[in-house]
């Protein structure tokens, strides 16, 4: 006999619990997670002409469009901060959020052929997507820093903004976005697999969500009596915080952050519950 009998035991039974996430399996398949991260990264840019340069170009082009349309044509007042920096900072969190959402919301329907043939933790592909998207975040931070140096030291506007020491908390802000986007993505992925209607809704939802988040306008522009609505949006504080730590502008308060993080956590936990409830038998219905 080649392999000694292992202590490995598996009990297969109908499962009706609501929060039964198999963390041990996730850990056992950690190598798959790393390989999937690599695959996401390699496959995405393999056949493109510019390759990884798209990581920098994508947010830059969006920033350019925003600067032209919202800054130049619509003239949304954002203060005296340089437009390009304002939008780049606003987009940092938002891009990460929307990329994660796009990758996770289709995970069940998009991988049905795979999930129908082989078992591995269903949470691995969305986690891999969120990790591989982190790379985009790093590249975007580098881009922001480059623009920051230019505007701070080579233009007159330089003295009106400045980096805050709270920038050390930036990873926590990114973490909140990751957790939230995973939660929303899992919700959506469970809903689309059960009701196809939701696949049509998701693009619309993202658009609406972006405009209700202070990405292209400052939070301070919202009339005071409506601010509480925006504060219930768990993306408001992360986006506002990024602008604050890089530029020193924006409205950031500890209680707002606590509320926002709490909502994000609630969405994450409930999304996880719904997802694992659907995930166990969804293959019977697709």
């Amino acid at each position, binding site marked *: 006999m080649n392999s000694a009998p292992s202590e490995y035991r598996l009990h297969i039974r109908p499962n009706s619990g609501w929060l039964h996430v198999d963390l041990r399996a996730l850990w056992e398949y950690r190598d798959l997670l790393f390989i999937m991260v690599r695959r996401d990264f390699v496959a995405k840019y393999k056949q493109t002409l510019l390759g990884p340069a798209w990581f920098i170009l994508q947010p830059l082009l969006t920033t350019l469009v925003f600067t032209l349309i919202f800054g130049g044509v619509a003239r949304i007042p954002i203060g005296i901060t340089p437009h390009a920096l304002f939008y780049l900072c606003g987009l940092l969190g938002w891009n990460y959020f929307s990329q994660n959402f796009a990758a996770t919301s289709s995970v069940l329907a998009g991988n049905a052929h795979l*999930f129908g043939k082989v078992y591995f933790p269903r949470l691995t592909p969305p986690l891999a997507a969120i990790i591989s998207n982190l790379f985009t975040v790093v590249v975007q931070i580098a881009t922001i820093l480059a623009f920051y140096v230019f505007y701070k030291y080579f233009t007159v506007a330089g003295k009106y903004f400045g980096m805050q020491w709270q920038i050390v908390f930036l990873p926590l802000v990114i973490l909140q976005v990751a957790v939230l986007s995973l939660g929303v993505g899992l919700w959506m992925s469970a809903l689309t697999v059960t009701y196809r209607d939701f696949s049509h809704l998701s693009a619309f939802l993202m658009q609406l969500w972006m405009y209700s988040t202070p990405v292209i306008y400052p939070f301070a522009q919202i009339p005071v009596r409506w601010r509480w609505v925006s504060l219930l949006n768990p993306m408001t504080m992360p986006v506002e915080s990024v602008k604050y730590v890089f530029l020193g502008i924006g409205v950031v308060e500890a209680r707002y952050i606590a509320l926002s993080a709490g909502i994000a956590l609630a969405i994450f936990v409930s999304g996880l519950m719904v997802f694992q409830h659907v995930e166990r038998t969804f293959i019977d219905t697709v």
Partner: protein
Amino acid sequence: MPEPIIEVRNLSKRYRLGDFGRHTFREQLDRWWNRLLKKNAGAPLSNGRFSFNGAGAKDFWALRDVSFSIERGEVVGVIGRNGAGKSTLLKILSRITEPTSGDALIRGRIASLLEVGTGFHPELTGRENVYLNGAILGMKRREIQGKFDEIVDFAEMADFIDTPVKRYSSGMYVKLAFAVAAYLDPEILIVDEVLSVGDAQFQKKCLGKMNSIAREGRTILFVSHNMGMITSLCSRGILLESGRLILNAPANEAVMGYYTRGHLSPASVDFARMGVRVGDDYAQLLECYIKNPDGEVTPNHDINNAVIIGLRYRILRQKRFDRAFPYAQINLHASGGALIFQSMAPTGGMEDCPPGDYVAECEIPRNFLNNEMYYISVAMATCDSGVNVHFHEINALCFQVTERLEASLYARRNGFSGPIAGAIRPDLKWRVEKTETSRLNNPRESAGLLA
């Protein structure tokens, strides 16, 4: 006594028919509303495998109270007709879906191979895919690294390992994929008929690999329609029928059981009415049947009558063909599983194949078969750029050829009443006549010459 490595207890799985999940939110709201209006629709009506739950949806029991256990080191074949519940059983044991009730205990690392090449990414190279596929099947990175050269060797793929797999031929793809799976090192391996891939030589290699895995004392659970493979590879067989386990015996007994239970197998199957979809996006098998020349669908056929095998199928979309056209095919198997012949419907005159329903009937002439039991597989394929199989139902139908001895004892059997050996007994042309008495062969004349 050691504990069994797999213990399955009263495993059942229910599917909802006519309620296939693709409903919209509005329909769900309607359903909730209806449920609110008439809270108690009464207990669901049950009818064997199907039960009706009042709301119009049918429950279908793909597995019902299946219990068995497998000892460490056994190689067990799971057999049964299409729809008997084999795949459902494997899917539950490999954790792709969950049972409705009952449970299973598995005491060892398990890997399942329900399809080769699962998760291959076309943009990645062979090398990258070996790692990805291995990890999907549950291998650690380090394990794959250790076995990488062996895998590439086994697949005979060293020259192409750094080419994206989208440039591979389908044969190369399958070889690499099987090689990855063959070097998995689980204690329990679940295999679903993957060996029907690749060329004959590679298949032989795969079989050899399976054999050596089995000899190493690993436990294998193997599903196949190939009874020869089951008897040569497995020590034990589990026969499923209509979701129930009906036989758990040594492999050859189980295979015998599979064939003798064939008496119950139908002379006609109406897939369309059962709500079972057989086919791909081009052609779909609706029904197949066996009838006698009077048009009566029956599993019993007199040896003096022709046997007519029919397929009703639907072409789903328009498609252009140049020289090779889709054709229907039947395969006739003897009760021992051996293939007697394949017959393809000629496609002349059908070159356009507009979408719609078709009937193809094939007549096996009278006095061609033996008085035996036969199995029919029906298929449809197109041979443009490789064989493209639209559907293939193995052993879909079964019939018995009968012979009334009193009618044929002297007419055809020359008074011999015993069984006549052979898979078929065709009425061949014979010429028997009295010839002129030849000089050389006449002993008297030869004697005269010598004298």
